[in-house]
């Protein structure tokens, strides 16, 4: 059994099913993110692990022992909250030392552990400040320090950066990941921000409507999404409806545009499938390529500068494609200009559609 195992967890609030049969295994020292839109059950799942909620069904195992009915204070879990929830009557150092103080540790041991955590989090000089005297980023570090102070068996983070502005958030992403690796801390992280999840995690569990729909490494979820939800929720993508023309060779067609797919998911000839094409996988050309079945001509409608890349919205007859291209190349393109697009050699089927064109599951 894994270090932390969630088995078939369910939780209802009245008639609302918040978590429906969630199972997940987290290895020791692993950083796993629960990623999903608001209301998908990720925070409820985290709170079940923390012991702040009791599951209606299912079990939670930590180091092989069921903790489903162990009260929150006895689970040995550290948690960082979205609201930070620092104790306003305590200084930063007192907040960090709180878990040790209530365990009745001697003052000198508390002081040395607090000093260790303060140094680890770069909070030197702020020890005697009260929460209201700290910035949001500093408060979040104190919250993290408090959660780490007693060497938790698992660290839980509930959207800890959602209230921070972008530069602070980016700094903390790197810092949390560094700390987690340095301390080899088993971590379960809840976020709705795919950038956070992809950049920090060893694995990402994608949640939707109370269920885990897909678990995998950030790279696999991004490049090989197994569902339409994963393809559209993680990163930007173009979802195109194609018809299978040659199942043996994995060939599909979209209005005369020939594409190859890596896995047809059992769809036979004439079956319609939904295909995902990432904007950065489409190449922008200034002339028609020789022998390119996967090339299509279109007109640039919208051009959005995004720093290193520029996103183009290109209308190609019935298709409207998003294309991410290096800004240096995009600078040569003006609005309403005609361009050629070369779609990638291999695309990914994310959904097999039924005869009427609606989803039949993959």
């Amino acid at each position, binding site marked *: 059994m894994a270090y932390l195992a969630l088995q078939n967890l369910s939780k209802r609030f009245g008639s609302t099913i918040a978590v429906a049969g969630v199972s997940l295994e987290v290895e020791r020292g692993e950083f796993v993110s629960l990623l999903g839109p608001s209301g998908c059950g990720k925070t409820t799942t985290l709170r079940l692990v923390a012991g702040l909620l009791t599951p209606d069904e299912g079990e939670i195992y930590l180091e092989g022992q069921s903790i489903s009915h162990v009260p929150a*204070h006895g689970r040995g879990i550290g*948690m960082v909250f979205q609201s930070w929830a620092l104790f*306003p009557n305590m200084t930063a150092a007192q907040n960090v030392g709180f878990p040790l103080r209530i365990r009745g540790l001697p003052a000198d041991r508390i002081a040395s552990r607090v000093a260790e955590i303060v140094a680890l989090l770069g909070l030197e000089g702020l020890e005697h400040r009260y929460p*209201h005297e*700290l910035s949001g980023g500093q408060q979040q570090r104190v919250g993290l320090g408090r959660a780490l102070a*007693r060497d938790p068996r698992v660290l839980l983070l509930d959207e800890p950066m959602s209230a921070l502005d972008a530069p602070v958030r980016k700094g903390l992403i790197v810092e949390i990941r560094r700390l987690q690796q340095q301390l080899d801390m088993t971590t379960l992280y809840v976020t709705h921000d795919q950038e956070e999840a992809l950049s920090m995690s060893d694995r990402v569990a994608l949640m939707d409507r109370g269920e885990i729909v897909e678990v995998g490494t950030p790279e696999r979820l991004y490049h090989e999404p197994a569902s339409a939800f994963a393809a559209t929720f993680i990163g930007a993508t173009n979802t195109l409806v194609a018809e299978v023309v040659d199942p043996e060779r994995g060939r599909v067609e979209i209005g005369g545009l020939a594409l190859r797919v890596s896995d047809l998911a059992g769809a036979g000839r004439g079956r319609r499938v939904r295909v995902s094409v990432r904007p950065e996988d489409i190449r922008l050309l200034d002339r028609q390529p020789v022998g390119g079945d996967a090339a299509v001509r279109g007109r640039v409608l919208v051009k959005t500068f995004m720093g290193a890349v520029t996103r183009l919205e290109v209308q190609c007859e019935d298709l409207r494609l998003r294309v991410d291209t290096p800004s240096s190349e995009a600078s040569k393109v003006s609005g309403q200009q005609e361009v050629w697009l070369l779609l990638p050699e291999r695309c990914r089927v994310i959904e097999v559609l039924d005869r009427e064109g609606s989803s039949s599951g993959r």
Partner: protein
Amino acid sequence: MTLSRSVRTVALILLGAFVLYLVLPLMATLLFALATRWTTTVLPEQLTSTWIFQTVREPRFLGTIRRSLTLGVVVILVDLLLVVPALVVMTVTRSRWRPLLDAASLVPYAMPGVVLALALIRFYGMVFPALLNTPWLLGAAHAALALPIVYWAILNNLKAIKLYDLYEAAVTCGARWPQILRFVVLPNIRTGMAIAAVAGFTASFTDFAVANFVVGGSWLTFSVWQGYVMHQNGHIMAVTSVVSLVVTMVTTFLLIRLAHESAPAPRHARGG
């Protein structure tokens, strides 16, 4: 934003009028307590300390003050002991009964003191007559009278500190209930408790109507004695009013100072 000179002038005039409105009756009472005679002139004809000494020498003066002080302290302790644990538990468990408690807590406000007193006398006269005319019944009546004040002061403080978040943070740090109460809840609601205590104490200390009905002369409180004195000597009545004000102000000062010394007031976090 800078205010124009005329707006500032109007604001100052309004503020001055408000202060006068509040201070004039107090000044007049104080002057009357010190006046030898004040009937036909704008200001007292002469000042004297006679009424003060006469009041202090009154045999019932110290006794009634002691009773009212004790009663006020007991009332706030009872109310805090009733309200704080109940509200903390209801907030943390997100009890669905809290709106009902909110409404029930307003009943003593909505009910005139006399009605409350008569209801208590009728009820206990039937079910437990031994309680009639005792300080126990008066204490219970005052506790009910001060309950809405204490309840809402504590409730607002609990909302302001986001108790639920703090509770969850504490419990995931490994804290149990007694530790949460001692280290997290109580230190953070000291201001609310001080406000509740001041308001509850004042309501009890200055109550005449309920005390007069429930115990009357059998357990004379300071306010009821004031009522008796009023018919005998207006100057002594003025002295007792000043004493009542001083007691309330000293209590307020002590409680607020205690709260401020022990709990830093939370302010908004800095950005970023």
